[in-house]
């Protein structure tokens, strides 16, 4: 293929393969959004919708922190508090992190692999609308009786005898609808990544974010049918007289826990792996260095996913389970630390001997590394089952899971937002506001959650709406509540930054970061067809090759000019 093609996408030289006979003007207005099958518009709808749910989940968290800021507080009724933590957990997992990853992947996977859309554009629209429907059904229960069984909805508490209202049913429909949405999306991602890559993009040249989305899709396909079955059994237990989880009729409450966590633990990796992918994209760009150990990182992603399917019962160490089961799941959980550690070391080694530019995305990426490490280390505490007997179901676990999910997912998502906002909107976010947001969030996060380890060690179980004023419980809780409002301020700074920059941000241009992957090859925001010409890919960093080629061309031209003179 001629080099000119690669250099200048805006002025394609080669003859177009399709000749347009009639050009329809691009539609605008709300109908263009409701009827769209464009992966970028769907991606934006995903991201905006899930961010709204993120803010709702955040408000729920702040209400809980307010309730806990005083011992024996009477601000919230127990039923309200239980509904709040159920909504918070469910929202953050099913309506924010997982679909936010789907949104980012929707927008960027086709761009990064040089495709013009997803493999099945209409299915893609379907997955978004299913997600929205799931969210609306779930939040509709707020006006009736929201569920109070926690995001894990353990049977028999979630059975009709103990949760007679429709809240649990709303939760079940949310799982079904968002699950269907994710399944349809996962099939779509898989088909797109396997079939629609740019020429030359072999398995060893796929961007690491795309690798993680591929694994994310496979994990969703493996894990979601199990939870779909589990909640269907719960639904028939509740309404059609079956007894799957009813010990009084030979059913088993532990069956629910096994089915739930067989989905629930892979779900953790479904949530954090795409975050790992974004970090693997962002660190090399800002360290101005290639990723250290591309193959090891890609392989570690696959190994984490595989092991992630084999460790679910480490959520159940305190249940009546045979000793050998405890040992198996302890050792399995240990094993997962190895590929995760490999990733961590590779990211740090990517920064080593680099020339690191601390733009906001890079700061969030570093924040991710610092926070996620703590979550990984406390994960080892919880994997040692005798230690877990003391720590499980306490605030230690709450702290651990927020270090993993805030670190592994939310900080990565914010890094992604700051990194890709210029591509999506064509405008830069304010660096000043971005850095202020990062530091506020970083400090707020650690003030909120570090102390929660101590809360758990001091004997405070999770999911309690009140606690007595004994020991240091109240002061620890007050520190945590104080931190949560700092964290919220940091998040609002980013919201403000986004709204402000939509109108008045500096114009970004196609490649403001001098990045490595193909999404930066096209205009910002990209046209509907993404690329007029798809370049041939010759490494993991096609944009670096293209820039080098342009430099060489310019040099050649400079050398030729004196000769002409």
């Amino acid at each position, binding site marked *: 293929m001629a080099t000119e093609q690669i250099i200048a996408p805006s002025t394609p030289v080669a003859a177009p393969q399709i000749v347009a006979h009639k050009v329809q003007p691009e539609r605008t207005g709300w109908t263009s959004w409701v009827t769209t099958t464009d992966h970028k518009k769907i991606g934006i709808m995903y991201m905006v919708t899930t961010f709204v749910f993120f803010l709702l989940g955040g408000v729920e968290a702040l209400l809980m922190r307010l309730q806990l800021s005083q011992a024996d507080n009477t601000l919230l009724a127990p039923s309200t508090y239980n509904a709040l933590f159920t909504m918070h957990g469910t929202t953050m997992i099913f309506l924010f992190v997982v679909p936010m990853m789907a949104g980012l992947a929707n927008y960027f996977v086709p761009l990064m692999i040089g495709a013009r859309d997803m493999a099945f554009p209409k299915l893609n629209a379907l997955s978004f609308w299913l997600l929205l429907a799931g969210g609306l059904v779930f939040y509709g229960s707020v006006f009736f009786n929201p569920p109070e069984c926690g995001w894990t909805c353990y049977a*028999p*508490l979630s059975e009709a005898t103990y949760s007679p209202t429709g809240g649990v049913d709303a939760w079940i429909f949310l799982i079904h609808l968002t699950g269907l949405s994710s399944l349809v999306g996962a099939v779509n991602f898989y088909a797109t990544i396997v079939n629609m890559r740019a020429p030359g993009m072999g398995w060893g040249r796929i961007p690491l974010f795309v690798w993680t989305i591929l694994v994310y899709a496979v994990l969703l396909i493996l894990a979601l049918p199990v939870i779909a079955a589990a909640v269907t059994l719960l639904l028939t237990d509740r309404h059609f007289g079956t007894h799957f989880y009813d010990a*009084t009729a030979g059913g088993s409450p532990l069956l629910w826990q096994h089915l739930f966590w067989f989905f629930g633990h892979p779900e953790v990796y479904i949530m954090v792996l795409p975050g790992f992918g974004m970090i693997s994209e962002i660190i090399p760009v800002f360290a101005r260095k290639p990723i250290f150990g591309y193959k090891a990182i890609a392989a570690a992603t696959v190994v984490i996913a595989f092991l992630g399917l084999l460790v679910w019962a480490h959520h159940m160490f305190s249940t009546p389970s045979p000793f050998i089961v405890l040992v198996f799941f302890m050792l399995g959980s240990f094993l997962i630390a190895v590929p995760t*550690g490999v990733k961590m070391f590779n990211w740090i080694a990517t920064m080593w001997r680099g020339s*690191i530019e601390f733009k906001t995305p890079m700061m969030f990426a570093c924040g991710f590394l610092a926070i996620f490490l703590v979550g990984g280390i406390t994960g080892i505490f919880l994997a040692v089952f005798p230690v877990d007997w*003391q720590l499980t179901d*306490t605030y230690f676990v709450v702290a651990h899971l927020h270090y993993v999910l805030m670190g592994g997912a939310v900080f990565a998502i914010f890094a992604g937002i700051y990194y890709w906002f210029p591509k999506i909107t064509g405008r830069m976010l304010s660096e000043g506001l971005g850095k202020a947001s990062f530091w506020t969030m970083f400090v707020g996060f650690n003030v909120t959650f570090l102390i929660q380890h101590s809360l758990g060690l001091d004997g405070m179980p999770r999911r309690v709406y009140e606690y007595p004023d004994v020991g240091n419980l109240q002061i620890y809780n007050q520190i945590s509540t104080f931190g949560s409002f700092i964290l919220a301020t940091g998040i609002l700074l980013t919201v403000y930054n986004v709204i402000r920059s939509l109108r008045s941000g500096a114009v970004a241009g196609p490649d403001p970061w001098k990045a490595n992957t193909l999404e930066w090859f096209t205009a910002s925001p990209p046209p509907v067809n993404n690329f007029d010409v798809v370049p041939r890919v010759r490494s993991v960093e096609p944009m670096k090759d293209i820039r080098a080629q342009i430099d060489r061309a310019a040099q050649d031209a400079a050398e030729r000019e004196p000769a002409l003179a």
Partner: protein
Amino acid sequence: MPSKELGAELRRSVDRLPQVVGSVRPNTSRPRRLALSLTAALVGLLVFAPGAFADFWKPESGGSPNADKISDLYVYVFIVGVIVFIGVEGALLWCIVKYRKRKNAVADQIHGNTNLEIGWTVGAALILVVLATITFVMLPGIRNPPNSSAAGLNLNSVQYAVGPGSGKQPPNGRSLNIAVNGQQYVWRFTYPDGDTNALNNVFAYEQMVVPTNTTVTLNIRAQDVAHSWWIPKLGGKFDAVPGYTNHTWFKISKPGIYTGQCAELCGRNHANMIAAVRAVTPAQYRLWYVLQRKQIQASSAAVAKLRPGIGTPKSQADPTLAPVPGNGSPHAAAPAAAAPAVAAIDAKALFVNGKGQATACGSCHVLAAAGTKGVVGPNLNKFIAKDDTVAAIKDMIVHPNAEIAKGYAAGIMPAAYATTLTSAEIDALAAYIFKNTR
């Protein structure tokens, strides 16, 4: 003590921390260095300040050897964790500071280093091998209950009867085996009394009284939703799940009250489902036990006296329960032998309400016709086969351990119905159950 050595080593490395960090960061400004050493000092102070802040960084302990050993194991994991934390966060900080963009700095275009990558993969795996080894070494002390001490409760007492479905026992096979039952939102403790009828035992709610220096083993069950038994100073959590029996143990040497609460979400009042273990000397325990039994008998008698007055069916009061014979109501004093003929027995009422010491069938069994929903025993609508005759059902009532339903343990159902009910009553019950399980 290895833990002390490790602790000292950790303390030394924390002391060194400001110098280590300072040495790799030659360009650190004064305020930043000050902040770092202050942080290190603060962390050191909080972590190693004895006593007041113990719960700040490690689990509670000091009640029972298993809790102490879990705490020790936690400390070893903590030490490894701190070393990894300092190493990795240190490397991260070092890279952030050392390799921030400077004028004319060019990034090295390194794609990887196979030896290095194999090295840290193996390194990470080795750390985990060490942790697994430590865990397996510590496990027996955490899982296996020891024998009671000489100062504990008398080993030959009937109190040591090990109840049905018990878990691990001490080497000499003797422990005070208490059944813990989680219910929304209270804990019930049933003490062993040597017979297989679990319904005439001494029981208590919320506070479990136990003798010191005595190994106490627990059979943990739930009767409605899942709960979790947790007294932090006496070891970890053990979920109480309907249909299952979970086990743990503790052995307290210091008298006192050890508090905890349910740790598995069990409904709106989960936060107030508290639990406490009060450890007293064996002598005090014996006294408490006798008093508790008397109190239960007295209140049962009082209820038996009230029953006829509040409209329950006749013949419900059991004379064997009355502590002082002859002072009850005419109903309570009626001898069992004078029971009316079969025709006059209300079998459904007997099934639902029981009679005196004969616990109601319905409190443990489902029977649709009686509308009962007990979960302790098998569902009679399913368990009673079509070919079971009235005589077979009668045999099941009188000899409950002859045939055990799949998934249920022997010895749960009272084996004393032959004495607590008249044969006429048993006939009526068997006929009633037969009729309603067709």
